[in-house]
């Protein structure tokens, strides 16, 4: 397990890099074919990537498949990461979430999707114990608490459930426009709450 060291990032990039032990720098090395750097990236992000895939897909085998694809994609496309467009963690997590969602939508109406969406609390025993992750989890939970119930529900269904916003509207029995704005307002409030750098 990694040893926590608060204040490890003297330039205050902490919240934009989030998970980072300078992930952006590692990606630049990965882009040059550095396998050791890729290992380091794996160790930082395999948990989140797999976790998101599990949340969205539910099925462990499929989640593993998607996680592998995503991580290889990171290896393959590291040179396309552009720090000007956002943090390295966001780049990877965007790929991961999209890939999981694509998979779920392609499968369309498969059995797993019929269960009523009840995003689980993420407190299973195999939860990653990285301190950064624990902090993230704490902060996310706290900031979720600052949202209205509908905002939080809509965001959880969309992000963790992988539902499109019309599907979310259907699940919550709300008009489309309402869900659209709830997701946006909720995310904006979360962004401000977590002081995510723009």
């Amino acid at each position: 397990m990694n040893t926590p060291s608060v204040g490890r990032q003297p330039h205050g990039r902490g919240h934009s890099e989030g998970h980072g032990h300078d992930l952006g720098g590692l990606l630049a090395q990965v882009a040059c074919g550095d396998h050791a750097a890729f290992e380091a990236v794996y160790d930082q992000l395999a948990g989140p990537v797999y976790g998101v895939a599990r949340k969205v897909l539910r099925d462990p085998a499929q989640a593993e498949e998607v996680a592998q694809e995503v991580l290889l994609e990171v290896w393959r496309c590291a040179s396309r990461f552009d720090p000007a467009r956002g943090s390295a963690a966001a780049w990877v997590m965007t790929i991961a979430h999209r890939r999981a969602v694509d998979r779920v939508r392609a499968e369309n109406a498969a059995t797993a999707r019929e269960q009523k969406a009840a995003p689980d609390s993420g407190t299973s025993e195999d939860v990653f114990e990285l301190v950064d992750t624990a902090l993230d989890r704490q902060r996310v939970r706290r900031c979720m608490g600052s949202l209205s119930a509908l905002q939080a529900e809509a965001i959880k269904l969309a992000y963790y459930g992988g539902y499109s916003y019309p599907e979310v509207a259907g699940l919550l029995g709300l008009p489309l426009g309402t869900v659209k704005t709830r997701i946006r307002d909720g995310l904006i409030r979360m962004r401000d709450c977590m002081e995510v750098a723009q």
Partner: protein
Amino acid sequence: MSVQSHDLHLLTGAYAVDALTAHELHEFEKHLEQCPSCADEVRGLRETAARLGLAAAIAPPPSMREQVLDAANRVRQLPPSGPRTLTAGLTRPARRLRRRLPRPIAVTAMAAVIVALAILQIGTRHQLHQAQTSNQTIASVLAASDARIELSSSTVGGTVTAVVSGHDREAVITAAGMPTPADARVYQLWVISPAGARSVGLLPGSSDGATSPVLADDVQPGDQLAITIEPAGGTKQPTTIPIVAIHTRR
């Protein structure tokens, strides 16, 4: 259905959590290119969404580590700069495992493709004449001295094979093992150039998961061949994220 730009701006949140429908996704991404304030907002909300993801971390199966690190040894990396991908800005490049085949193997592979094509076309006798003309072209692409085979996995499963001749500016595309799309939707093939996407046509359906070959002409080096899932009959422009995208060599 056209969406007003004010409404489009409200989609930043849903976009950041990948909750747009295929149609809106396409419109929104077009809009993003012309709306710096939307792009800014999306950037911030993406960071926020990423935090939701980081908070959901679960330890993956231990065996995954070695598999991924090992696979990286076999996957070629993209060069630092290259053709722009479809969703300019926030790209999600399709997975592709390019294989550079040594010449003799390439020839064998081509022979295999030709056999496969021959078998595939037995079922379409009534289109024989048409097929023959197209077959001649296909055969000439396959036989072109600079023909290259590109294999790529699609995100819905299965493999897409493209034989590309830069000299002839043509490509032959076949797919195998892809599931039949739900809701009477279809696979549509595109040539993506800096000028935009041009439809090549629909991938023919198939009973056993392998499609008969489709010929794409006017494929310039550097163009991408992409397949999207579209409503029955196809569309004028792609409305969904490609399930596979193959870059042709410059």
